[in-house]
Structures are given as C-alpha cells and as structure tokens.
C-alpha cells in the first residue's frame, strides 16, 4: 500500500462538491424512472386487488398480492433446500427459511449466468470463426441452422442423460437454448457491419485479422449486447424449466412443488422473485452496456435507454 494518498483521497468521509452534484443529478434522472416503475406495478396490482374485491378472482386460485405477500416467512419455509428425497432426512432439516430462500435464488442465478456466459463466449467465437474461415462455415453452419429451431424442452432428456441431476443439466439447458440463436445473431451482426469501416481499414493496409480484431469486433459489440439482453430473459425462462425437472433445488423446483401441492400463493410469490431477479439482471447488464459502449451517444445506445 504505497499509494495511500490517492486511496485516502478517494475514501474521504465527506464527498466533494462535484461528487454531490453528480449524485444529485443521478438521483434526479432516476427518480422519474423509479416513480413510473412503482406506478406501473401498482396499477397492475390494484386491478388484481379490485378483481378480488368484487369477487371476480377466486382467492384460492388467483390470490391477490396482499394475500400471497402476507405470509413471507411461511412461504420461505417451502424453499427448504434439504434433500428431502434422501432416506433419513427430517422434514425440518436444512438451513433456516431466509437462508434457504437466498440459496435458492443464488443457485438459480448462478445457473443463468453460467449458461449465459458459456453460450455468449462460445457462440461469439464460433460466429466470428464461421465468417473468418469458409471451411468452418461449411462444416458447422448447416448443422447449427438445423438445430436452432429445436425447442429447449426437447433438450431436457438429453440434459439429464448427459449430466444426471444437479447444476449440470440446468446450465446445459440454458446454454443449449441460447447457443444456436446467438451464433446466428453474431453472424448477422458481422454481415451488418458498415462496409465503409472495413474499406477505410483496408485502404490503411489492414490485414484480414486486423480488420476482424480492430474493426468488426468493436463494430458488432453494441448489437451483441442487445442480443445478450434479450437472451438473458430467455435464460431465466429456460432455467425454470430445467430446475422444475432435474435439479434438487432452485426456483423452478419451488414452482413445481407449489403446483403439486396446489399452493397458488407460493406460485405468485416465486413469480415475484423471478421478476425482480430478471429486472435486476437486466439493469446490471444495461449498466455494463453503458460502460463498454462509451462511444455511443446516450440517446442512441440501442436499447440502453428504453
């Protein structure tokens, strides 16, 4: 720690004036955003509550928010991650309800990001390779296009054959559901790169490799991040399907149990959690997008400002 002056200046107890101004500006730009989010969700909940109030929605089938959010600790008990199918495990065994909810959430999130990360890295590499080497295109593209329309559900037995039970099949499911589409999206992005950029680089004497690394890769990055955001939602959908069948615990498993035990409150409670998680992940990705795509003016940063 030789650079303490810099470090201590950064960690000053009182933020300097420009920092305050920045924080205030940030707050001001976020408040309407936050406000409208609350209004939007509130409106949806209010309509639901009204339907319940007038007796149109049976609370045993469609419990309104105030019902399914009333017994949080009770609901949390169902997230028990103890492996109850194993012989000799007591029904009260396992971590406390709050910890169980956390473990469930974290394991689902981990599966989403592991699958999404793998699919992103491999599909971008392969997509670029397909455009770079004709031979790779000829060898792989027909198969990829054939497999792209196959529903993730069809991969479910394959996932279990290959990986049994646990994290493996869930990650594989997320991966396989996104992989083919992301390859095709990468190729589309490469084909859509403005010819002028490539021609400018060519006139400056760039080699094929330099054109790919220095021009095509940065040029497709904005589009790829939009693709990534769309596929993030896809990943959340698929992980639920995978968890519902093959994995010991996770949000999908909770939904499945809620279905089997006829517990609509638990279903909606879990849906709320999934919604919040998806929203949070999307927010995170948007922040990353803004960081990486520093060169795009804010207003036209693809979907960054939607």
């Amino acid at each position: 720690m030789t650079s303490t002056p810099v470090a201590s200046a950064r960690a000053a107890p009182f933020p300097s004036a420009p920092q305050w101004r920045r924080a205030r500006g940030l707050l001001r730009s976020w408040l309407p955003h936050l406000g409208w989010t609350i209004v939007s969700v509130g409106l949806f909940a209010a309509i639901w509550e009204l339907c319940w109030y007038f007796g149109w929605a049976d609370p045993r089938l469609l419990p309104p928010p105030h019902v399914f959010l009333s017994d949080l600790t009770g609901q949390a008990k169902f997230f028990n991650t103890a492996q109850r199918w194993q012989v000799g495990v007591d029904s009260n065994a396992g971590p406390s309800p709050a910890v169980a909810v956390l473990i469930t959430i974290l394991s689902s999130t981990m599966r989403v990001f592991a699958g999404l990360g793998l699919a992103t890295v491999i599909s971008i590499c392969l997509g670029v390779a397909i455009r770079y080497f004709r031979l790779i295109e000829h060898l792989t593209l027909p198969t990829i296009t054939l497999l792209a329309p196959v529903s993730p559900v069809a991969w479910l037995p394959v996932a279990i054959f290959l990986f049994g039970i646990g994290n493996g099949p869930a990650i594989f499911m997320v991966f396989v559901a996104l992989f083919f589409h992301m390859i095709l999206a990468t190729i589309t992005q490469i084909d859509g790169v403005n010819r002028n950029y490539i021609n400018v680089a060519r006139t400056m004497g760039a080699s094929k490799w330099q054109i790919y690394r220095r021009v095509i890769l940065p040029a497709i990055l904005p589009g790829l991040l939009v693709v990534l955001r769309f596929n993030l939602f896809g990943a959340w959908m698929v992980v639920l399907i995978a968890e519902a069948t093959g994995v010991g615990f996770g949000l999908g498993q909770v939904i499945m149990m809620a279905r089997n035990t006829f517990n609509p409150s638990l279903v909606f409670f879990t849906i709320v959690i999934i919604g919040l998680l998806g929203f949070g992940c999307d927010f995170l990705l948007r922040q990353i997008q803004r960081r990486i795509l520093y060169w795009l003016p804010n207003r036209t940063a693809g979907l960054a400002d939607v």
Partner: protein
Amino acid sequence: MSEPAICCRGVGKVWAAGTERAHEALRGIDLIVEDGEFVVVLGPSGCGKSTLLYLIAGLEETSAGEIAAHGVPVTGPAPDRSLIFQETSLFPWLSVWQNVSFGLSLRGVGKAEQREISRQVLFRTGLAETFDKRPHELSGGLRQRVAVAAMRPKVLLMDEPFAALDVQTRAKMQGFLLDVWRESGASVIFVTHHIDEAMALADRVVVCTARPGRIKDIVTIDRPRPRDPFASEAVALRRKLTELLSAEVDRAFAEQENVAIA
C-alpha cells in the same frame, strides 16, 4: 520522367457479372491524373462515379482495362491511395487521435509515437482541440476534416465527402481541402454531382454520362483559387457544365422510368 499519379486505360466495371442482376456501371474510362492535380468527376446520380473511386482505391476489381498508380498496376488497396466517404470514415469507438494514428497502429508503431504523430497532424491542420474527443462529439464538418487529416496519401479519393453538410459548412470545407491539397502536394480525385463544387475546386472537371458511365467531356478550369463564383467566366462555365450534365440527368431519369415500367 515522372509517371502520372493515376492512369486508367479502358476501365470498365460490371457489377454482379454473369448473373441476371448484372449491370454495367462503367465503360471505357481513359483518364490520366497528373501528380498534384485536382480532378473533379461530375455526373448524375448512379452514373458509376463512386465505382471509379472504388476501382482506383483497389477496393474492387476492374472488369475491363487497367489502372496504374505512379506506374504500378493497382491490385488492391494501399495506404498511399485513401478513400474518404460521405459519412463514417472515422471509427466511433476510437478517439480522434486514435483514428488519426489507426494506420500507424496497424504497422505496429508504439503508442507514444502514435500519440505524438497524431498530435502533430492535428496541430498542423488546426484541429488540436479535437485530440481527445470522440467522433460523435464533433460536428459533421469537423469529422470530415479529421478524416482528411488522418490520411496522408499521395492520391486522395473523395466520394461526395461534403454532401451531408450544409451549404456554409461545405464552402468552408472546400477551402480547408484546398489548403490541405496545396500543402501536401497530393493528387485529388473528387466525386460530386454539384456543379458549383466542381467549379470551386477542380483543375479539370470530368463530366460523366448516365449509366454506364463514360467520359463525356473534360473541361479544364484555368483560374486561380479562391474563385469568384459570379465572375463572367464562371457564368459561362456554369452554363456549359449545366448543359453537359442536364442532358445526362434526363437520360438517367428516362432510364429509371423504363426500368420502373418494365
């Protein structure tokens, strides 16, 4: 005995040759551009003038004839023949100085040296304050000035570079381009469909026919710059160029109508 900067002999180009979408863009272009000469190619839209630049730049292959740059046959793009487009000649993900030194970075020149050379180039062209900016932070005119400054070629090829700019900016840019041209001693081949632009810039104006593009006439302008666009010679010249061009514009329109009917 110096070779001409660019020598085109019987150059022709057919796009999508051999398919049913094939169409002939250029036919039998014979054009010699001397070292340090400013040539403007004037023609109706879609007459293949841009195609000619792409061929000279080496970005596309000729279908007929041959092109030589300083006596060496053109087989591909090279840093001494640079093409400036109407838009997007700068990479938006690089800062201005990184754009200027992009060509150097391709050749593995060190970062510090790149910065230094960019700084000098931008300073010389009066763009020093744009050094650390990003292209999207600059106006369209400034962007094109940086694009021109980034290139230090022997032959500068420009494809309607100022078409997206407003009239006042365009006049300024023409002055800037003439300064760069005079200082660098490069040859310029400049494509436009604006008669006034051609008259302000050119040593020689090459008037092209409608598709397929052929050379209809070459008009030499022997007046010192900056040129008064309202001088009596200018009026006569404008009339001549307008007549040459309007006949071709009519033909281009007639052809488009035929295509639309068929």
